[in-house]
């Protein structure tokens, strides 16, 4: 389906009409893309979906270790149809989210540490964490796909004021860190995501596209040369700033090259979305639909998905909760507030489950996309009331290419670093790393057995 200005305009009118439009995504895709058709052995994908402010652990952890018995706990209920595809990992800990002499700011810290495995520096400006595990993977296998990694989110970044007790907003706005000092901002707007994946020039003909690529290349060459000349006269910090700029240019050049070699246009299978829908579920669906297409067409294998910002005070009127999420999690044990937190946790899970079901519905070889994925759903805090960093809620979804046996809960020893899980996942992505963050080794028990 070709996206034309005409269809956009129609959508504009619909949007003006203020109605939430449910796009018949998979219907529109049929029959072109109801099955993935990547040649060769199916790739393994890795994704991290992050929810903020901890979870209500009473309704998260299944009672028994080992295979699930009976009903899943309340928050996991929406995953019922996928119960054989999920593994609950207990007792994993993020030590670097703890204060460790840096005082308050657990929200800022736990998100900055979540995928990096290092303690973020407490600062407004001089930000520093570590390279995140998804980026280690993207650096190694990213060249195989058009986008080394995709960063997605649903909540606009907070703009003014201090984000958490002295921690820069960079720590709560981002999950992925390309380097110690460079977080990768998530894309929030479905339209921007669409244009990033499928290009603004989805309507250009091959000749025009070739010319565009050529022009872009020469422009990038031109500015690279200019920048290098400029750098000679600068002090160290200024030089570092321009290095950042140059490394971004190199990344774009690489993408251009990739796109050139890869002439097949990916069919988005959906009309171009317009702006951010007011409805949370709709926004969630649009973004995850696009990730699904990206997985399906092997445009990227690594995704981080910041569902909402750590420490967010977003209310959930969609489900009748007018209070902010963060204040609610400081429930002090009050039942009424606890219940609301649980409902928010469930609401997130309902959306997530729909996405997982979608991934499972797409055949790939004799498996499906979910079977060839490892998707971690979790939070950087377990108890949002007390800001605890041990026994984090961690759910691993997907078969990791027929290598993970789901349908059970595995409890590790106390204080086992969550970095051990990441290291194990990197192994499964064929990314060999000796060490990551505060890992003390790999974790056992994930393998089919």
């Amino acid at each position, binding site marked *: 389906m070709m996206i034309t*200005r005409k269809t*956009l*305009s129609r959508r*504009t*009118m619909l949007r*003006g*009409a*203020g109605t939430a439009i449910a796009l018949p995504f998979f219907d529109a895709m049929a029959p072109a893309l109801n099955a993935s058709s990547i040649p060769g052995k199916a790739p393994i994908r890795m994704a991290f979906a992050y929810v903020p402010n901890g979870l209500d652990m009473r309704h998260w952890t299944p009672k028994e270790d080992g295979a699930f018995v009976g009903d899943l706990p309340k928050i996991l209920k929406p995953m019922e149809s996928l119960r054989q595809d999920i593994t609950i990992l207990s007792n994993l800990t993020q030590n670097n989210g703890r*204060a460790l002499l*840096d*005082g*308050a*700011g657990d929200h800022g810290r736990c998100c900055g540490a979540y995928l990096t495995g290092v303690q973020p*520096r407490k600062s*407004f*400006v001089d*930000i520093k964490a570590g390279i995140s595990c998804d980026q280690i993977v993207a650096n190694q296998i990213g060249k195989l796909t058009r986008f080394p990694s995709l*960063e997605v989110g649903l909540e*606009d970044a907070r*703009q*003014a*004021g*201090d984000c958490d*007790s*002295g921690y*820069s907003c*960079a720590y709560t706005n981002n999950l992925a860190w*390309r380097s110690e*000092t460079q*977080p*990768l*901002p998530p894309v929030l707007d479905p339209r921007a995501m669409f244009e*990033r994946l499928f290009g603004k020039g989805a309507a250009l003909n091959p000749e025009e596209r070739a010319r565009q690529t*050529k*022009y*872009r290349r*020469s422009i990038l060459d*031109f*500015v690279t040369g*200019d920048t290098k000349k*400029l750098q000679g006269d*600068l*002090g160290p*910090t*200024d030089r570092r*700033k*321009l290095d950042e*700029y140059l490394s*971004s240019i190199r*990344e*774009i050049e690489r*993408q251009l090259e990739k796109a050139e070699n890869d002439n097949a246009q990916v069919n988005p299978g959906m009309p171009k979305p317009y702006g951010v829908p007011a409805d949370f579920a709709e926004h969630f669906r649009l973004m995850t639909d696009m990730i699904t297409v990206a997985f399906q067409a092997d445009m990227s294998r690594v995704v981080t998905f910041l569902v909402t910002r750590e420490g967010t*005070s*977003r209310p959930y009127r969609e489900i009748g909760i*007018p*209070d*902010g999420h963060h204040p609610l999690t*400081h429930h*002090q044990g009050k039942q009424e507030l606890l219940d609301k937190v649980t409902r928010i946790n469930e609401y997130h899970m309902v959306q997530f489950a729909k996405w997982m079901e979608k991934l499972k519905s797409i055949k790939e070889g004799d498996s499906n996309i979910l079977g060839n994925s490892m998707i971690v759903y979790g939070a950087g805090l377990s108890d949002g009331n*007390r800001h605890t960093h041990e026994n984090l809620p961690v759910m691993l979804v997907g078969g990791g290419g027929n290598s993970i046996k789901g349908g059970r809960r595995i409890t590790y020893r106390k204080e086992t670093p969550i970095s051990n899980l990441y290291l194990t996942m990197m192994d499964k992505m064929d990314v060999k790393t000796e060490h990551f963050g505060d890992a003390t080794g790999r974790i056992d028990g994930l393998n089919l057995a």
Partner: protein
Amino acid sequence: MPIVSPRSVAKAVLPLCAALLFAQGPVKPTFDHSVQPLLTKSCLSCHNDRLQSGSVNLTPFVNPATVLGNREDWEKVVQKVRSGEMPPKGLPRPSMDQITAFTAFIESEWERADKNVKPDPGRVTARRLNRIEYTNTIRDLLAVDFRAEKDFPTDDSGYGFDNIGDVLTISPILMQKYLEAAETISSRALGADPLPAKPVEFEYHTKTKTVRRLDRSNIEATHRVDWDGEYEVTIGLPGERAKDALPVEMGFWMDGKLLYKQMVETKPSGLVYFNPYSEEHFRVFVPEGDHVFRVGFIGDEFAKTLTDREVFSDRKTKFLNMIKFIGPFPAKVERASRKRVLVCDPNTGAACVTKILTTLTRRAYRRPVTRADIAPLEGFVAMARKEGQTVEQGIQLAIQAVLVSPHFLFRIEKHPAPNDPLRVAKVSDLELASRLAYFLWSSMPDDELLALAEAGKMRAPGVLDAQVKRLLADSRGGALADNFAGQWLEIRNLDSVKPDPQKFPEWRPELRDAMRAETRLFFENVLRENRSMTEFINGRYTFLNEMLAKHYGIEGVTGPDFRRVELTTDQRGGILSHASILTVSSYPTRTSPVIRGKYVLQNMLGAPPPAPPPDVPALDESTAASSGSLRQQMEKHRTNAVCASCHNRMDTLGFGLENYDGTGKWRAKDGKFEIDVSGTMPNGKSFQTPAEMRALLLDQMPEFTRCVTEKMLTYSLGRGLERFDRRTVDGIGKKLAANGYPFQLLINEIVQSLPFQMRRGEAPKQVAQR
């Protein structure tokens, strides 16, 4: 006489004796005399080795060497003693003389030490344009209306502002956006994109609930425009008014800016209609982007005479119900952006192409350009020609390159010895012009500034002051209200707050916009009229439209337009009674004295409370329950000594604002509970009403001035303040106090200050590891 050790008595008394003996006038204050007694008696009883109250142990500070050696710790001590926060309520308070002698001695020591330190202007990291600066610069450079804030990822902020060089990073995504934006903008600037063959129609109608009714005479719709171009606008006007009704003026606004107006006949047409109806048509040029369009009758006296039942009756009156756009059509007049770029006809030959590129690049790079700058751009024109494209398309390509060049995207300042941290140098006139323009306009310097800088006249006597005056008077001076005040006062957070519609049914986007406008207009008034900064605390006027006036319960303000309103009651005054500020400092369902208290301390008094101790969630006020008023509940909570030391200070200020609800509406009761706003300031003075609290805050003008100065200096420099900047801040504070706090003086002083005028190098360093 307090119990002190004999030795210290001797020390305290001896100099006195000496002074008497030799009659040498006043005693030279010493540590032992001015500081130690107070420290020992008033501080050490709790902050000692054993008790360490609040994790503070001052025993090691009974040592004169610490005054300079541990200056940051001492600053906290002095601040707490001076503000009266310490010693806490209930403990004996030292006499005012003692306190003055205490603080005076310590500060004189610092002053003495500072005199020997070489002034340090600091160093600003190369700044890339943030989203707002990018938008404005494109507007001023090419006359293209491009909204970077809708397209680019959010800029991270530091020190409360989003223009801090150190945190403005570039990611591949942003780079991609720059590249795409350059393509879009250059194409729009030259009008190169073909318009669709057939115009498209968009209709917004009350029937389909796609227009909002703002009031009896105004409707509004949000519309995305996909192409720069002219559009035929049709306004639907049902109904008719009485025979003797006068014609009324109809206006058409885009994003609050009036684009078009005309008179509209309202009396019966004489034709027989079942449903009387008429339309008005006009054509306007509209730039690409998401816009809010409003159409309404200006000064519509007739509508005010109607009863609520009559206002939308087509038998009784004429009103508005529809906005329709048909377009785009090619513009009849040449677009401004083309005129801006094509200073001559490029088809006349290479000389003109060079001229076009030189003119544009000088402005884009904000400096004179050299042959080396232009030659590669001419190469792009040639490249496009080789591809079989026109010269104009070649120029478009060159513009694309300019717009992703580091010279355009970054504000880079050169230094004669970039690696020498001791070498201090003036920033060049050109760099100064950019600093000034981005400070006051969040945009590039205009031709006048650039010409002055090129001629090396920026620092000629009187020039800077005159330029500041000129820049502030320009409409672009509003950037300071949007970007500085918007972040200083956290007004930008209005976009993300979501008051609960159940508890605050009056909350609407229009109300939010009105709140924002009030604070913005107030700030601009103090700025442009050069009013005293005391008006921020206790100004006796504000700016309202009908919606906000109703929200405040103020009579006699009608229509959607804002106007200055003198405040006649004590309910409101100064910015702390602005609904915008009261809303951003509340929870979605209720007020939060803690957040509001913290807000005042942080943004008005420059004394942000320390973060709560580790592992402790911020003291949560819990939902107001039936067991007592919020205040009673919180006071019970505060019996915990650990919490009380900070919360006493915060909550007093916060409770002082409890008469304003979560959206800033005045209230006498919170639910069924009486509101008790009374409180006692740390310095012992007490108040009964918000107005009295404001009056007491006026006592703290030095703190307030210091706070605003620090924030504005941070904003103007794009870096966090360092210890060495305190001399600049102190100096400005004194000057403001001596002159009655005129706001423009602050700006002039900043522009003339050492850190704004100079920079130093930086030692090549390993980034310090923590």
